[in-house]
Protein backbone atom coordinates (compact mmCIF):
# COMPACT_ATOMS: atom_id res chain seq x y z
CA UNK A 1 0.00 0.00 0.00
CA UNK A 2 2.75 2.39 0.89
CA UNK A 3 4.30 2.00 -2.52
CA UNK A 4 1.09 2.88 -4.23
CA UNK A 5 0.89 5.86 -1.99
CA UNK A 6 4.41 6.87 -2.85
CA UNK A 7 3.50 6.97 -6.50
CA UNK A 8 0.54 9.15 -5.90
CA UNK A 9 2.49 11.37 -3.60
CA UNK A 10 4.13 12.74 -6.67
CA UNK A 11 1.62 15.32 -7.64
CA UNK A 12 3.46 18.12 -9.35
CA UNK A 13 3.33 21.42 -7.58
CA UNK A 14 3.47 23.01 -11.01
CA UNK A 15 -0.05 21.62 -11.51
CA UNK A 16 -2.94 24.03 -11.61
CA UNK A 17 -4.30 25.26 -8.33
CA UNK A 18 -7.53 23.63 -7.18
CA UNK A 19 -8.18 26.03 -4.34
CA UNK A 20 -6.62 29.44 -3.84
CA UNK A 21 -7.07 31.20 -0.54
CA UNK A 22 -5.63 34.70 -0.58
CA UNK A 23 -5.30 36.79 2.58
CA UNK A 24 -8.61 35.63 4.03
CA UNK A 25 -9.97 37.20 7.20
CA UNK A 26 -13.09 36.39 9.12
CA UNK A 27 -14.73 37.66 12.26
CA UNK A 28 -17.40 36.21 14.51
CA UNK A 29 -18.74 39.46 15.90
CA UNK A 30 -15.65 41.09 17.37
CA UNK A 31 -13.72 37.87 17.45
CA UNK A 32 -11.08 37.67 14.73
CA UNK A 33 -11.15 33.94 13.83
CA UNK A 34 -9.14 33.89 10.61
CA UNK A 35 -6.28 36.36 10.41
CA UNK A 36 -4.86 36.47 6.93
CA UNK A 37 -4.87 32.92 5.62
CA UNK A 38 -2.91 32.24 2.44
CA UNK A 39 -3.05 28.76 1.01
CA UNK A 40 -2.91 27.20 -2.41
CA UNK A 41 -4.07 23.62 -2.79
CA UNK A 42 -3.03 21.96 -6.03
CA UNK A 43 -4.93 19.33 -7.91
CA UNK A 44 -4.48 15.92 -6.29
CA UNK A 45 -2.72 17.44 -3.35
CA UNK A 46 -3.55 16.16 0.13
CA UNK A 47 -3.36 18.52 3.04
CA UNK A 48 -3.78 17.80 6.72
CA UNK A 49 -4.57 20.67 9.04
CA UNK A 50 -4.00 20.38 12.75
CA UNK A 51 -3.92 22.78 15.63
CA UNK A 52 -5.39 23.45 19.05
CA UNK A 53 -9.12 23.69 19.66
CA UNK A 54 -10.59 27.04 18.67
CA UNK A 55 -7.74 27.90 16.32
CA UNK A 56 -10.08 28.25 13.34
CA UNK A 57 -9.48 24.98 11.46
CA UNK A 58 -13.15 24.21 10.98
CA UNK A 59 -13.93 27.79 10.11
CA UNK A 60 -11.27 27.76 7.42
CA UNK A 61 -12.46 24.67 5.62
CA UNK A 62 -16.10 25.70 6.04
CA UNK A 63 -15.23 28.92 4.21
CA UNK A 64 -14.15 26.85 1.22
CA UNK A 65 -17.72 25.77 0.50
CA UNK A 66 -19.24 28.88 1.96
CA UNK A 67 -20.84 27.32 5.00
CA UNK A 68 -19.15 30.34 6.55
CA UNK A 69 -18.69 33.64 4.78
CA UNK A 70 -15.24 35.24 4.72
CA UNK A 71 -15.05 38.98 5.22
CA UNK A 72 -11.82 39.93 3.52
CA UNK A 73 -9.56 38.36 0.90
CA UNK A 74 -10.44 35.94 -1.89
CA UNK A 75 -11.26 32.27 -2.14
CA UNK A 76 -11.17 30.72 -5.59
CA UNK A 77 -12.27 27.13 -6.07
CA UNK A 78 -11.47 25.51 -9.40
CA UNK A 79 -11.42 28.86 -11.12
CA UNK A 80 -14.65 30.17 -9.63
CA UNK A 81 -14.42 32.86 -6.99
CA UNK A 82 -16.71 32.66 -3.97
CA UNK A 83 -18.81 35.80 -3.84
CA UNK A 84 -22.39 36.44 -2.86
CA UNK A 85 -23.52 35.01 -6.16
CA UNK A 86 -25.82 32.19 -5.10
CA UNK A 87 -25.46 30.29 -8.36
CA UNK A 88 -21.68 30.23 -8.00
CA UNK A 89 -21.96 29.08 -4.41
CA UNK A 90 -24.27 26.22 -5.36
CA UNK A 91 -21.99 25.26 -8.21
CA UNK A 92 -18.94 25.18 -5.96
CA UNK A 93 -20.78 23.24 -3.29
CA UNK A 94 -21.66 20.60 -5.83
CA UNK A 95 -17.98 20.26 -6.72
CA UNK A 96 -16.69 20.22 -3.16
CA UNK A 97 -17.52 17.25 -0.94
CA UNK A 98 -17.74 17.78 2.79
CA UNK A 99 -17.57 15.22 5.57
CA UNK A 100 -18.58 16.38 9.03
CA UNK A 101 -17.51 15.34 12.48
CA UNK A 102 -21.06 14.27 13.31
CA UNK A 103 -21.83 12.65 9.92
CA UNK A 104 -25.03 14.65 9.41
CA UNK A 105 -26.77 11.93 7.44
CA UNK A 106 -30.44 12.55 6.72
CA UNK A 107 -32.20 10.36 9.28
CA UNK A 108 -35.51 10.23 7.44
CA UNK A 109 -33.99 8.71 4.31
CA UNK A 110 -32.53 5.27 3.70
CA UNK A 111 -28.81 5.02 3.09
CA UNK A 112 -29.45 4.67 -0.63
CA UNK A 113 -31.70 7.73 -0.68
CA UNK A 114 -29.12 9.69 1.28
CA UNK A 115 -26.64 8.93 -1.47
CA UNK A 116 -28.87 9.63 -4.44
CA UNK A 117 -30.39 12.87 -3.17
CA UNK A 118 -27.64 15.13 -4.50
CA UNK A 119 -27.13 13.36 -7.85
CA UNK A 120 -30.86 13.29 -8.60
CA UNK A 121 -31.77 16.81 -7.56
CA UNK A 122 -28.57 18.76 -8.16
CA UNK A 123 -26.98 16.86 -11.01
CA UNK A 124 -30.34 15.84 -12.50
CA UNK A 125 -29.20 12.27 -13.06
CA UNK A 126 -32.00 9.71 -13.68
CA UNK A 127 -32.89 7.76 -10.56
CA UNK A 128 -31.82 4.35 -11.82
CA UNK A 129 -28.41 5.64 -12.83
CA UNK A 130 -27.95 7.50 -9.56
CA UNK A 131 -28.77 4.32 -7.64
CA UNK A 132 -26.31 2.34 -9.66
CA UNK A 133 -23.59 4.88 -8.88
CA UNK A 134 -24.63 4.93 -5.23
CA UNK A 135 -24.26 1.16 -4.98
CA UNK A 136 -20.82 1.44 -6.56
CA UNK A 137 -19.68 3.90 -3.91
CA UNK A 138 -21.28 1.89 -1.12
CA UNK A 139 -19.23 -1.10 -2.29
CA UNK A 140 -16.23 1.13 -2.19
CA UNK A 141 -16.74 2.03 1.44
CA UNK A 142 -17.54 -1.65 2.16
CA UNK A 143 -21.11 -1.15 3.26
CA UNK A 144 -23.30 -2.08 0.29
CA UNK A 145 -25.36 -4.56 2.32
CA UNK A 146 -26.75 -1.71 4.42
CA UNK A 147 -28.21 0.21 1.48
CA UNK A 148 -31.81 -0.12 2.56
CA UNK A 149 -31.35 0.63 6.23
CA UNK A 150 -31.78 4.00 7.89
CA UNK A 151 -28.81 5.93 9.31
CA UNK A 152 -30.03 5.40 12.87
CA UNK A 153 -29.55 1.67 12.42
CA UNK A 154 -25.84 1.92 11.65
CA UNK A 155 -22.81 2.29 13.90
CA UNK A 156 -20.87 5.53 13.97
CA UNK A 157 -18.08 4.20 11.77
CA UNK A 158 -20.59 2.91 9.25
CA UNK A 159 -22.42 6.20 9.25
CA UNK A 160 -19.26 8.12 8.57
CA UNK A 161 -18.40 5.83 5.68
CA UNK A 162 -21.88 6.42 4.29
CA UNK A 163 -21.28 10.15 4.64
CA UNK A 164 -18.08 9.81 2.65
CA UNK A 165 -19.89 7.80 -0.01
CA UNK A 166 -22.64 10.43 -0.11
CA UNK A 167 -20.06 13.07 -0.97
CA UNK A 168 -18.36 10.85 -3.52
CA UNK A 169 -21.64 10.31 -5.36
CA UNK A 170 -21.49 13.95 -6.40
CA UNK A 171 -18.18 13.27 -8.15
CA UNK A 172 -16.45 16.04 -6.25
CA UNK A 173 -13.18 17.62 -7.31
CA UNK A 174 -12.14 18.21 -3.72
CA UNK A 175 -13.06 16.53 -0.47
CA UNK A 176 -13.05 18.41 2.81
CA UNK A 177 -12.98 16.44 6.07
CA UNK A 178 -13.64 18.14 9.39
CA UNK A 179 -12.37 15.84 12.13
CA UNK A 180 -14.05 12.83 10.53
CA UNK A 181 -12.96 10.38 13.20
CA UNK A 182 -13.12 12.38 16.39
CA UNK A 183 -16.71 11.46 17.21
CA UNK A 184 -16.00 7.75 16.76
CA UNK A 185 -15.21 5.01 19.22
CA UNK A 186 -11.57 3.93 18.91
CA UNK A 187 -12.37 0.60 17.26
CA UNK A 188 -14.21 2.37 14.43
CA UNK A 189 -11.57 4.94 13.61
CA UNK A 190 -9.54 2.58 11.50
CA UNK A 191 -12.37 1.57 9.18
CA UNK A 192 -12.96 5.22 8.34
CA UNK A 193 -9.28 6.05 7.93
CA UNK A 194 -8.87 3.05 5.64
CA UNK A 195 -11.58 4.40 3.36
CA UNK A 196 -9.87 7.79 3.33
CA UNK A 197 -6.54 6.20 2.49
CA UNK A 198 -8.10 4.35 -0.44
CA UNK A 199 -9.52 7.63 -1.60
CA UNK A 200 -6.10 9.22 -1.37
CA UNK A 201 -4.61 6.43 -3.47
CA UNK A 202 -7.02 7.27 -6.24
CA UNK A 203 -5.69 10.78 -6.39
CA UNK A 204 -8.51 12.72 -4.74
CA UNK A 205 -7.67 16.27 -3.73
CA UNK A 206 -8.24 16.34 0.02
CA UNK A 207 -8.11 18.77 2.91
CA UNK A 208 -8.39 16.96 6.19
CA UNK A 209 -8.66 18.51 9.62
CA UNK A 210 -7.58 15.76 11.97
CA UNK A 211 -5.41 14.89 14.91
CA UNK A 212 -4.69 11.42 13.56
CA UNK A 213 -0.98 11.92 13.14
CA UNK A 214 -0.39 8.47 11.71
CA UNK A 215 -2.78 9.30 8.92
CA UNK A 216 -1.08 12.65 8.36
CA UNK A 217 2.33 11.00 8.11
CA UNK A 218 1.34 8.38 5.59
CA UNK A 219 -1.13 10.27 3.43
CA UNK A 220 -0.49 14.00 3.50
CA UNK A 221 1.69 15.89 1.09
CA UNK A 222 1.68 18.82 3.44
CA UNK A 223 0.78 19.21 7.09
CA UNK A 224 -0.32 22.64 8.27
CA UNK A 225 -0.37 23.84 11.83
CA UNK A 226 -2.94 26.49 12.70
CA UNK A 227 -3.06 28.61 15.81
CA UNK A 228 -4.97 31.80 16.62
CA UNK A 229 -6.45 32.03 13.16
CA UNK A 230 -3.17 31.80 11.31
CA UNK A 231 -1.24 29.10 9.50
CA UNK A 232 1.83 29.02 11.67
CA UNK A 233 3.77 26.37 9.84
CA UNK A 234 3.34 24.09 6.85
CA UNK A 235 5.69 21.39 5.66
CA UNK A 236 6.00 17.86 4.37
CA UNK A 237 5.00 15.36 7.05
CA UNK A 238 8.58 14.26 7.44
CA UNK A 239 9.86 17.75 8.16
CA UNK A 240 6.79 18.75 10.10
CA UNK A 241 6.98 15.94 12.63
CA UNK A 242 10.72 15.41 12.86
CA UNK A 243 11.85 18.96 12.53
CA UNK A 244 9.21 21.46 13.63
CA UNK A 245 10.39 25.05 13.36
CA UNK A 246 8.09 27.10 15.54
CA UNK A 247 7.84 26.93 19.30
CA UNK A 248 4.07 26.70 19.17
CA UNK A 249 4.25 23.76 16.75
CA UNK A 250 6.72 21.99 18.99
CA UNK A 251 4.55 22.55 22.02
CA UNK A 252 1.46 21.30 20.19
CA UNK A 253 3.24 18.22 18.87
CA UNK A 254 4.65 17.39 22.26
CA UNK A 255 1.14 17.54 23.71
CA UNK A 256 -0.47 15.47 21.01
CA UNK A 257 2.26 12.81 20.73
CA UNK A 258 2.48 12.71 24.53
Amino acid at each position, binding site marked *: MNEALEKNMKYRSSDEAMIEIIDVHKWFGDFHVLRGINLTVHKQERIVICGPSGSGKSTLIRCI*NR*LEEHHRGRIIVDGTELTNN*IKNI*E*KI*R*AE*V*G*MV*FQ*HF*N*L*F*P*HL*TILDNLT*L*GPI*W*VRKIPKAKAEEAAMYYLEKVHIAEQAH*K*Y*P*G*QLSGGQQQRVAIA*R*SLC*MNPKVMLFDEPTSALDPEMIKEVLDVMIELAQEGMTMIVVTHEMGFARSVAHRVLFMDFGQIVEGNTPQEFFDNPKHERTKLFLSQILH
Partner: protein
Amino acid sequence: MEQATFETNIEDVKPPATSVGVIGWVKQNLFNGWLNSILTIFTFVVLWKIVPPFFRWAFIDSVWNTTGQACRHAAGACWSIVSANYRFIIFGFYPYDQQWRPFLAMMILFGLLFYSRNRKHWKKSLGYAWILGLFTMGLLMKGGLFGLVPVETTKWGGLPLTLLLSVFGLTAAYPLGVVLALGRRSKLPAIKVLCILYIELIRGVPLISLLFMSSIIFPLFLPEGITINKILRAQVAIILFTAAYIAEVVRGGLQAMSRGQYEAAESLGLNYYLTMRLVILPQALKIVIPPTVSILISAFKDTSLVVIIALWDLLKTTQSVLSNPEWMGFSREAYIFIAIFYFLGCFSMSNYSRKLEKELSAGEESR
Protein backbone atom coordinates in the same frame (compact mmCIF):
# COMPACT_ATOMS: atom_id res chain seq x y z
CA MET B 1 -16.85 -22.36 38.53
CA GLU B 2 -18.51 -19.30 37.11
CA GLN B 3 -19.26 -21.36 34.06
CA ALA B 4 -21.22 -23.83 36.15
CA THR B 5 -23.48 -21.29 37.85
CA PHE B 6 -24.10 -19.71 34.49
CA GLU B 7 -25.33 -22.96 33.04
CA THR B 8 -27.76 -23.73 35.81
CA ASN B 9 -29.27 -20.28 35.37
CA ILE B 10 -29.85 -20.77 31.71
CA GLU B 11 -32.58 -23.39 32.24
CA ASP B 12 -36.15 -22.33 31.62
CA VAL B 13 -37.73 -20.98 34.75
CA LYS B 14 -41.50 -20.57 34.70
CA PRO B 15 -42.72 -17.13 35.72
CA PRO B 16 -44.46 -17.07 39.10
CA ALA B 17 -48.18 -17.72 38.87
CA THR B 18 -49.11 -14.27 40.14
CA SER B 19 -47.69 -12.54 37.10
CA VAL B 20 -49.65 -14.41 34.46
CA GLY B 21 -53.26 -14.93 33.54
CA VAL B 22 -56.26 -12.79 34.39
CA ILE B 23 -55.49 -12.54 38.07
CA GLY B 24 -51.93 -11.58 37.35
CA TRP B 25 -53.01 -8.89 34.91
CA VAL B 26 -55.60 -7.47 37.29
CA LYS B 27 -53.15 -7.44 40.12
CA GLN B 28 -50.43 -5.81 38.08
CA ASN B 29 -52.50 -3.21 36.31
CA LEU B 30 -55.37 -2.36 38.64
CA PHE B 31 -54.29 -3.10 42.19
CA ASN B 32 -50.55 -2.53 42.34
CA GLY B 33 -50.32 -0.26 45.34
CA TRP B 34 -52.98 1.29 47.54
CA LEU B 35 -53.34 4.51 45.53
CA ASN B 36 -54.04 2.60 42.33
CA SER B 37 -56.45 0.31 44.16
CA ILE B 38 -58.46 3.28 45.43
CA LEU B 39 -58.51 4.83 41.96
CA THR B 40 -59.64 1.55 40.44
CA ILE B 41 -62.49 1.14 42.90
CA PHE B 42 -63.49 4.79 42.50
CA THR B 43 -63.56 4.45 38.72
CA PHE B 44 -65.70 1.34 38.89
CA VAL B 45 -68.21 3.04 41.19
CA VAL B 46 -68.47 6.06 38.90
CA LEU B 47 -68.91 3.85 35.84
CA TRP B 48 -71.60 1.84 37.64
CA LYS B 49 -73.49 5.01 38.49
CA ILE B 50 -73.32 6.37 34.94
CA VAL B 51 -73.30 3.63 32.37
CA PRO B 52 -76.37 1.51 33.22
CA PRO B 53 -78.73 4.49 33.65
CA PHE B 54 -77.49 5.99 30.40
CA PHE B 55 -77.93 2.70 28.63
CA ARG B 56 -81.45 2.44 29.98
CA TRP B 57 -82.26 6.02 28.89
CA ALA B 58 -80.75 5.71 25.46
CA PHE B 59 -81.86 2.24 24.44
CA ILE B 60 -84.40 0.56 26.72
CA ASP B 61 -86.81 3.36 27.61
CA SER B 62 -86.27 5.30 24.38
CA VAL B 63 -88.69 5.97 21.56
CA TRP B 64 -87.55 6.03 17.98
CA ASN B 65 -90.18 6.75 15.38
CA THR B 66 -92.98 8.81 16.83
CA THR B 67 -94.29 12.34 16.79
CA GLY B 68 -93.06 14.94 19.21
CA GLN B 69 -96.32 14.60 21.15
CA ALA B 70 -95.85 10.90 21.75
CA CYS B 71 -92.30 11.55 22.92
CA ARG B 72 -93.44 13.61 25.86
CA HIS B 73 -94.87 10.48 27.56
CA ALA B 74 -91.74 8.42 27.10
CA ALA B 75 -89.41 7.87 30.04
CA GLY B 76 -86.25 7.58 27.95
CA ALA B 77 -84.61 9.31 25.04
CA CYS B 78 -86.71 10.68 22.23
CA TRP B 79 -84.71 9.69 19.16
CA SER B 80 -87.75 10.59 17.10
CA ILE B 81 -86.41 14.12 16.90
CA VAL B 82 -83.61 12.72 14.84
CA SER B 83 -85.59 10.32 12.72
CA ALA B 84 -88.21 12.95 11.95
CA ASN B 85 -85.78 15.74 11.17
CA TYR B 86 -82.55 14.19 10.01
CA ARG B 87 -82.96 15.40 6.44
CA PHE B 88 -83.19 18.99 7.60
CA ILE B 89 -80.42 18.64 10.18
CA ILE B 90 -78.06 17.20 7.62
CA PHE B 91 -78.98 19.15 4.50
CA GLY B 92 -80.57 22.37 5.82
CA PHE B 93 -82.59 24.34 3.28
CA TYR B 94 -81.22 22.48 0.28
CA PRO B 95 -84.29 21.66 -1.88
CA TYR B 96 -85.76 18.45 -0.55
CA ASP B 97 -86.01 16.60 -3.85
CA GLN B 98 -82.44 17.58 -4.76
CA GLN B 99 -80.79 16.41 -1.56
CA TRP B 100 -79.31 13.37 -3.29
CA ARG B 101 -76.84 15.82 -4.82
CA PRO B 102 -75.11 16.97 -1.63
CA PHE B 103 -75.33 13.37 -0.45
CA LEU B 104 -73.50 12.16 -3.52
CA ALA B 105 -70.97 14.99 -3.17
CA MET B 106 -70.25 13.94 0.41
CA MET B 107 -69.85 10.33 -0.64
CA ILE B 108 -67.30 11.38 -3.26
CA LEU B 109 -65.48 13.39 -0.59
CA PHE B 110 -65.44 10.49 1.87
CA GLY B 111 -64.30 8.17 -0.88
CA LEU B 112 -61.42 10.42 -1.83
CA LEU B 113 -60.42 11.01 1.79
CA PHE B 114 -60.51 7.32 2.50
CA TYR B 115 -58.50 6.46 -0.58
CA SER B 116 -55.93 9.14 0.28
CA ARG B 117 -55.34 7.57 3.68
CA ASN B 118 -52.84 5.19 2.20
CA ARG B 119 -49.56 6.91 1.43
CA LYS B 120 -48.89 4.42 -1.35
CA HIS B 121 -51.70 6.07 -3.27
CA TRP B 122 -50.10 9.52 -3.14
CA LYS B 123 -49.31 9.78 -6.81
CA LYS B 124 -50.02 12.24 -9.55
CA SER B 125 -53.17 10.36 -10.50
CA LEU B 126 -54.56 10.96 -7.03
CA GLY B 127 -54.05 14.69 -7.55
CA TYR B 128 -56.06 14.50 -10.75
CA ALA B 129 -58.70 12.43 -8.98
CA TRP B 130 -59.02 15.19 -6.38
CA ILE B 131 -59.30 17.91 -8.98
CA LEU B 132 -61.95 15.94 -10.85
CA GLY B 133 -63.70 15.12 -7.56
CA LEU B 134 -63.73 18.75 -6.44
CA PHE B 135 -65.14 19.82 -9.76
CA THR B 136 -67.87 17.18 -9.59
CA MET B 137 -68.73 18.06 -6.01
CA GLY B 138 -68.97 21.74 -6.88
CA LEU B 139 -71.16 20.94 -9.86
CA LEU B 140 -73.43 18.70 -7.79
CA MET B 141 -73.84 21.32 -5.10
CA LYS B 142 -74.34 24.30 -7.37
CA GLY B 143 -76.04 22.75 -10.38
CA GLY B 144 -76.89 24.77 -13.48
CA LEU B 145 -75.21 22.36 -15.89
CA PHE B 146 -76.19 18.99 -17.37
CA GLY B 147 -79.82 19.57 -16.44
CA LEU B 148 -79.13 19.99 -12.74
CA VAL B 149 -81.35 22.67 -11.21
CA PRO B 150 -79.22 25.55 -9.93
CA VAL B 151 -79.20 25.88 -6.14
CA GLU B 152 -78.21 29.19 -4.55
CA THR B 153 -75.33 28.97 -2.10
CA THR B 154 -77.58 30.67 0.44
CA LYS B 155 -79.50 27.40 0.55
CA TRP B 156 -76.43 25.32 1.33
CA GLY B 157 -76.30 24.16 4.89
CA GLY B 158 -75.96 21.38 7.40
CA LEU B 159 -73.29 18.72 7.15
CA PRO B 160 -72.15 19.52 3.59
CA LEU B 161 -71.48 23.10 4.64
CA THR B 162 -69.58 22.04 7.75
CA LEU B 163 -67.50 19.63 5.67
CA LEU B 164 -66.91 22.22 2.97
CA LEU B 165 -65.67 24.78 5.48
CA SER B 166 -63.48 22.38 7.37
CA VAL B 167 -61.99 20.23 4.62
CA PHE B 168 -61.04 23.22 2.48
CA GLY B 169 -60.22 25.33 5.48
CA LEU B 170 -57.75 22.79 6.79
CA THR B 171 -56.21 21.73 3.51
CA ALA B 172 -55.60 25.34 2.50
CA ALA B 173 -54.47 26.49 5.94
CA TYR B 174 -51.78 23.84 6.27
CA PRO B 175 -49.55 24.82 3.31
CA LEU B 176 -50.17 28.49 4.05
CA GLY B 177 -49.06 27.91 7.63
CA VAL B 178 -45.89 26.15 6.47
CA VAL B 179 -45.06 29.03 4.13
CA LEU B 180 -45.64 31.52 6.94
CA ALA B 181 -43.38 29.55 9.26
CA LEU B 182 -40.62 29.53 6.66
CA GLY B 183 -41.17 33.23 6.07
CA ARG B 184 -40.86 33.96 9.75
CA ARG B 185 -37.41 32.35 9.74
CA SER B 186 -36.37 34.02 6.49
CA LYS B 187 -33.15 35.97 6.27
CA LEU B 188 -34.91 38.69 4.29
CA PRO B 189 -36.09 41.26 6.82
CA ALA B 190 -39.13 42.43 4.85
CA ILE B 191 -40.57 38.94 4.51
CA LYS B 192 -39.75 38.12 8.10
CA VAL B 193 -41.45 41.22 9.49
CA LEU B 194 -44.52 40.70 7.31
CA CYS B 195 -44.91 37.12 8.49
CA ILE B 196 -44.42 38.01 12.13
CA LEU B 197 -46.96 40.82 11.84
CA TYR B 198 -49.47 38.55 10.17
CA ILE B 199 -49.06 35.72 12.64
CA GLU B 200 -49.19 37.89 15.72
CA LEU B 201 -52.11 40.00 14.50
CA ILE B 202 -54.23 36.99 13.65
CA ARG B 203 -53.37 35.20 16.86
CA GLY B 204 -54.30 38.33 18.72
CA VAL B 205 -57.98 38.21 17.74
CA PRO B 206 -60.59 35.52 18.28
CA LEU B 207 -62.00 33.68 15.29
CA ILE B 208 -65.41 35.17 15.98
CA SER B 209 -64.18 38.68 15.37
CA LEU B 210 -62.46 37.59 12.16
CA LEU B 211 -65.74 36.06 10.99
CA PHE B 212 -67.59 39.24 11.87
CA MET B 213 -65.07 41.31 10.02
CA SER B 214 -65.30 39.13 6.96
CA SER B 215 -69.08 39.14 6.91
CA ILE B 216 -69.98 42.64 8.08
CA ILE B 217 -67.04 45.03 7.86
CA PHE B 218 -65.29 43.73 4.77
CA PRO B 219 -68.34 44.17 2.43
CA LEU B 220 -68.53 47.84 3.44
CA PHE B 221 -65.25 48.42 1.63
CA LEU B 222 -66.37 46.75 -1.56
CA PRO B 223 -67.68 48.97 -4.36
CA GLU B 224 -71.42 48.99 -4.77
CA GLY B 225 -72.88 46.08 -6.66
CA ILE B 226 -70.01 43.74 -5.98
CA THR B 227 -70.66 41.04 -3.45
CA ILE B 228 -68.44 38.19 -2.52
CA ASN B 229 -70.11 34.99 -1.55
CA LYS B 230 -70.69 34.78 2.17
CA ILE B 231 -69.51 31.18 2.46
CA LEU B 232 -66.32 32.07 0.63
CA ARG B 233 -65.69 34.94 3.03
CA ALA B 234 -66.16 32.72 6.06
CA GLN B 235 -63.94 30.13 4.41
CA VAL B 236 -61.16 32.66 3.91
CA ALA B 237 -61.44 33.83 7.50
CA ILE B 238 -61.10 30.25 8.75
CA ILE B 239 -58.10 29.62 6.52
CA LEU B 240 -56.30 32.79 7.57
CA PHE B 241 -56.98 32.09 11.22
CA THR B 242 -55.89 28.45 11.24
CA ALA B 243 -52.80 29.13 9.17
CA ALA B 244 -51.38 31.49 11.79
CA TYR B 245 -51.58 28.78 14.44
CA ILE B 246 -50.14 26.13 12.19
CA ALA B 247 -47.28 28.49 11.35
CA GLU B 248 -46.24 28.70 14.96
CA VAL B 249 -46.33 24.96 15.47
CA VAL B 250 -44.31 24.36 12.32
CA ARG B 251 -41.79 26.99 13.41
CA GLY B 252 -41.25 24.93 16.53
CA GLY B 253 -40.47 21.92 14.37
CA LEU B 254 -38.06 23.92 12.24
CA GLN B 255 -36.23 25.11 15.33
CA ALA B 256 -35.78 21.54 16.45
CA MET B 257 -33.72 20.76 13.35
CA SER B 258 -29.98 20.76 13.89
CA ARG B 259 -27.71 23.06 11.92
CA GLY B 260 -25.89 20.00 10.63
CA GLN B 261 -28.91 18.98 8.56
CA TYR B 262 -28.98 22.32 6.77
CA GLU B 263 -25.23 22.22 6.27
CA ALA B 264 -25.19 18.68 4.93
CA ALA B 265 -27.93 19.53 2.44
CA GLU B 266 -26.28 22.77 1.39
CA SER B 267 -22.88 21.21 1.00
CA LEU B 268 -24.40 18.82 -1.54
CA GLY B 269 -25.32 21.90 -3.55
CA LEU B 270 -29.05 21.80 -2.83
CA ASN B 271 -30.65 25.23 -3.03
CA TYR B 272 -32.91 26.70 -0.34
CA TYR B 273 -36.10 25.34 -1.85
CA LEU B 274 -34.76 21.80 -2.26
CA THR B 275 -33.11 21.82 1.16
CA MET B 276 -36.43 22.67 2.74
CA ARG B 277 -38.50 20.34 0.64
CA LEU B 278 -36.29 17.27 0.74
CA VAL B 279 -34.43 17.49 4.01
CA ILE B 280 -35.81 19.96 6.53
CA LEU B 281 -39.59 19.94 6.14
CA PRO B 282 -40.05 16.15 5.99
CA GLN B 283 -38.35 15.92 9.37
CA ALA B 284 -39.71 19.08 10.94
CA LEU B 285 -43.31 18.46 9.92
CA LYS B 286 -43.12 14.92 11.22
CA ILE B 287 -41.99 16.10 14.63
CA VAL B 288 -44.97 18.42 14.90
CA ILE B 289 -47.68 16.03 13.75
CA PRO B 290 -49.29 15.78 17.22
CA PRO B 291 -49.64 19.53 17.89
CA THR B 292 -50.63 20.16 14.27
CA VAL B 293 -53.45 17.67 14.53
CA SER B 294 -54.63 19.34 17.74
CA ILE B 295 -54.90 22.59 15.82
CA LEU B 296 -56.70 20.93 12.93
CA ILE B 297 -59.14 19.28 15.30
CA SER B 298 -59.97 22.49 17.09
CA ALA B 299 -60.27 24.29 13.76
CA PHE B 300 -62.71 21.63 12.64
CA LYS B 301 -64.86 22.23 15.69
CA ASP B 302 -64.50 25.99 15.39
CA THR B 303 -66.20 25.94 12.02
CA SER B 304 -69.42 25.80 14.05
CA LEU B 305 -68.80 29.46 14.94
CA VAL B 306 -70.04 30.43 11.49
CA VAL B 307 -73.45 30.25 13.13
CA ILE B 308 -72.95 33.81 14.28
CA ILE B 309 -72.75 35.12 10.76
CA ALA B 310 -75.94 33.27 9.93
CA LEU B 311 -74.52 30.39 7.96
CA TRP B 312 -76.59 27.26 8.46
CA ASP B 313 -73.98 24.74 9.38
CA LEU B 314 -74.72 21.46 11.12
CA LEU B 315 -75.06 23.07 14.53
CA LYS B 316 -77.40 25.79 13.30
CA THR B 317 -79.77 23.42 11.51
CA THR B 318 -79.99 21.38 14.69
CA GLN B 319 -80.78 24.43 16.77
CA SER B 320 -83.49 25.47 14.39
CA VAL B 321 -85.17 22.07 14.71
CA LEU B 322 -85.11 22.53 18.46
CA SER B 323 -86.89 25.86 18.18
CA ASN B 324 -89.82 24.11 16.51
CA PRO B 325 -92.52 23.86 19.25
CA GLU B 326 -93.13 20.19 18.45
CA TRP B 327 -89.56 19.25 19.28
CA MET B 328 -88.70 21.82 21.90
CA GLY B 329 -86.95 20.34 24.90
CA PHE B 330 -85.27 17.39 23.22
CA SER B 331 -81.96 19.11 22.86
CA ARG B 332 -80.03 16.31 24.57
CA GLU B 333 -80.92 13.82 21.87
CA ALA B 334 -80.32 16.26 19.03
CA TYR B 335 -76.95 17.36 20.32
CA ILE B 336 -75.86 13.79 20.97
CA PHE B 337 -76.72 13.09 17.35
CA ILE B 338 -74.51 15.85 15.95
CA ALA B 339 -71.84 15.22 18.56
CA ILE B 340 -71.44 11.84 16.89
CA PHE B 341 -70.58 13.55 13.59
CA TYR B 342 -68.05 15.84 15.22
CA PHE B 343 -66.59 12.96 17.17
CA LEU B 344 -66.20 10.82 14.07
CA GLY B 345 -64.44 13.69 12.32
CA CYS B 346 -62.05 14.44 15.18
CA PHE B 347 -61.42 10.82 16.00
CA SER B 348 -60.54 9.86 12.47
CA MET B 349 -58.14 12.80 12.29
CA SER B 350 -56.27 11.87 15.43
CA ASN B 351 -56.37 8.22 14.50
CA TYR B 352 -54.94 8.95 11.10
CA SER B 353 -52.23 11.16 12.50
CA ARG B 354 -51.08 8.35 14.75
CA LYS B 355 -50.99 5.95 11.83
CA LEU B 356 -49.04 8.46 9.77
CA GLU B 357 -46.57 9.13 12.54
CA LYS B 358 -45.95 5.43 12.94
CA GLU B 359 -45.45 4.88 9.22
CA LEU B 360 -43.12 7.82 8.86
CA SER B 361 -40.85 6.75 11.65
CA ALA B 362 -40.74 3.10 10.60
CA GLY B 363 -37.14 1.99 10.52
CA GLU B 364 -35.63 5.33 11.45
CA GLU B 365 -35.57 4.70 15.16
CA SER B 366 -32.11 4.07 16.44
CA ARG B 367 -31.25 0.56 17.42
